[in-house]
């Protein structure tokens, strides 16, 4: 698709929304018509897409079924006290939406996603199914060595599923390709921090989410075009909104309607946890030396402080405080999916850090298929109003 044809940021975001809401993954099916490699789905939060790309695979972000997927069989797999994303993902698997995928990766996020990998293995025995056990020890010679062996194993499995053999130069090129992609995402986040009225999060979200189902070669021009159109959107003027960080939503994604509701309630979301894979690594991955080691070291040493990563040396919440500061946020919205262990167990510790620094916050829970936002909208509106009152005083 030629993204240059789009003349407005909203128009491009609308097309991106169509792409990500297309649960039949037409974009992936189209890619497969001209490619011999496998399409490999992955769950949030992080997988080394560069390695898949280098071996000729298309990595496809599977982030649940959202708010417009009817759950027919998925609920038969999960009790009411388990979050929503595994049931909608199973639904997508069983209703044939994911037939075009040759495999699925389940990164170590929590016990629910971990166990989903086992269900997947039993339901789809002919596909590549891998639980990607990322290390919680971040020493290069301990966790790093283990993670490298995990990636080598993944690489071998890709070859068994029509992937190309591993090659250092190919991986180096793929790292460069994704560095470029990450660079545009960083630029978009920088623009949103600077002029959030030009980059509504509800639009940015669509562009970033569509990026996870199209090839990176298409994603980068799309994001670049959106950046260009947003930068030039002179018809978008600043409004009297409160600048907030939205945190807690790194796995099951909030419905788009919820993001829109928060914006309408008077919040500029200037920092968030959505679709974290785009920003999981803070900087470009080095192109010098052994590229697989570089991927490993980036994971160990350059990743964000996700609640899915063990933190013992650093103070809990320091990263969030830093993000509040860098983004110029005036408050924090904790929005976690119901029954999300990593987010909800983290929250009391992070709240403590915010309170020590006097950063206002409020919290709510959501489900990816929630449709009623009135209560959250009122809560966020009151929060935004109170921030504005405080800042005036």
């Amino acid at each position, binding site marked *: 698709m030629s993204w240059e044809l789009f003349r407005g940021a909203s128009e491009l975001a609308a097309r991106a929304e169509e792409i990500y809401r297309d649960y039949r993954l037409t974009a992936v099916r189209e890619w497969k018509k001209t490619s011999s490699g496998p399409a490999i789905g992955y769950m949030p939060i992080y997988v080394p897409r560069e390695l898949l790309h280098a071996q000729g695979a298309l990595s496809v972000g599977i982030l649940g079924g959202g708010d417009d997927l009817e759950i027919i069989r998925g609920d038969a797999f999960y*009790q009411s006290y388990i979050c929503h994303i595994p049931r909608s993902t199973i639904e997508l698997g069983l209703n044939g939406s994911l037939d075009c995928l040759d495999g699925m990766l389940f990164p170590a996020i929590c016990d629910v996603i971990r166990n989903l990998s086992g269900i997947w293995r039993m339901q789809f025995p002919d596909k590549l199914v891998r639980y990607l056990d990322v290390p919680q020890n971040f020493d290069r010679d301990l966790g790093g060595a283990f993670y490298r062996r995990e990636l080598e194993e993944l690489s071998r499995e890709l070859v068994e599923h029509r992937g190309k053999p591993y090659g250092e130069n190919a991986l180096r090129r793929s790292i460069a390709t994704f560095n470029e992609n990450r660079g545009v995402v960083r630029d978009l986040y920088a623009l949103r921090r600077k002029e959030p009225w030009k980059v509504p999060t509800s639009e940015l979200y669509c562009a970033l989410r569509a990026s996870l189902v199209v090839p990176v070669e298409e994603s980068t021009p799309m994001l670049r075009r959106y950046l260009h159109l947003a930068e030039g959107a002179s018809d978008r003027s600043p409004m009297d909104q409160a600048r907030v960080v939205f945190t807690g939503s790194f796995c099951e994604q909030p419905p788009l309607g919820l993001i829109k509701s928060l914006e309408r309630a008077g919040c500029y979301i200037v920092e968030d946890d959505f679709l974290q894979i785009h920003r999981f690594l803070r900087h470009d991955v080095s192109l010098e030396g052994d590229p697989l080691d570089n991927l490993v070291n980036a994971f160990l040493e350059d990743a964000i402080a996700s609640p899915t990563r063990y933190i013992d040396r650093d103070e809990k919440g320091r990263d969030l405080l830093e993000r509040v500061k860098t983004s110029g946020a005036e408050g924090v919205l904790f929005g976690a999916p119901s029954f999300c262990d990593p987010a909800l167990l*983290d929250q009391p510790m992070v709240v403590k850090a915010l309170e020590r620094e006097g950063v206002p916050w409020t919290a709510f829970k959501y489900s990816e298929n929630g449709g009623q936002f009135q209560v959250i909208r009122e809560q966020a509106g009151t929060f935004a109003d109170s921030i504005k009152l405080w800042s005036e005083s």
Partner: protein
Amino acid sequence: MTESPRREAQKDTSQLRQKEMLAEHFGRLARAEETGEKSAYTFVPGNLTELIRSFDLLPVLPEINALQSGMRGKSREYIAVAERLGHSEDVCTYVKSDIGMMKSGNVGPTGERLPSPSVLLLSYTGCFTFLKWFELLKEEYHCPIVMLHVPYQGDGKVTESMRTYVVDQLRRKVIPVLEEVSGRAYDEDRLKEALSLSAKAEDDLVWVLESAKNRPSPIDAYFGGVYYIGPMFSAFRGTEAAVEYYQSLRSEVEQRIAEGRGPLTPDGELENERYRVVVEGPPNWTSFREFWKMFADEGAVVVASTYTKVGGVYDTGFRHDPRHPLETLADYCMGCYTNLSLPQRVAMLARYVTDYRADGFLINSVKSCNSFSAGQLHILREVENRVGRPGGFIESDLVDPRYFSASNIKNRLESYFQMIEQKRSAGVGA
């Protein structure tokens, strides 16, 4: 069976002995500040008791404290304390009970105050929540913390890469911290000696658990089983006391088999074994006795359970091996039940139903524990398909009494046992 739920629970000699062992252990912990003994807070699945004790550190297990708080009727208030501090109603109630207990003076199961930890030893086995739990404790205690990341058996096996990772962490991370905290050098001979004792006790534990293959079963391998695993899964693995306990328990069970007796329940001996079932999932602790009685009143005996494998799977042949001390600890950690993949769990349950000639299996799905619960409905169908015997599903929680609905569970159990009767009439069953 006599119906007198309020009377004092009947106990085996082994249970009384275990009570003494626990009292002595908690007594030492209570006196630790005056005696100078140091403690390591750690977890049951993947516990490194032999290693901890080789440094003369006393293990403290927060999940055991939480379940004891549940059994003593204290968890409701502890959970409320934690929720008032901002902990979500959605998350693990073991964590909240522990946090609440700590905030209420850290009084342990025997009514004595527990010492603050000298070290937090996070062996992260089979449960993601452990990781967050110790991040929370780290905020409260200013002591060294060391983590052992134990890889999950996603592919249904332990690979050399996984073993190397765990052994390297033990050697280069865990042991140096324990040396520093305890002031003692790592003594491999001492560790090996303890591991030999572990293997002896493990032999007897397996024998006891497998005694349920007899008809009638001399034990209840779930409700009774949680007592049998007590010393092994808590602070005593690798000690002479544990070896003696399991020898004596085995003798007791041998005697029951010789006399053709069924298991002892808190309300008396179960005399008429009508149903043999396998149970998956942890028990509810706040209404433990009432829960057990629902089974016993129906003449139902649990002949095998997965919960009794949460602190180690021994009935597939694993024993701690003193010849390879760190490797064996690694294999132990990676082999605990909740570190197994779902296909492995399905296979284990199916094997239990067959090997123990069970009429069916029940899943007690607890709200708190995603490690156990996520996927159990799938397990239910898979096991039913494989063994052709009925599965039942009940829901409760570990230590939050708000999630134990006695009438609901009783109704489901009664329906389940009726279903077994119907299957029997139709000629299906063990």
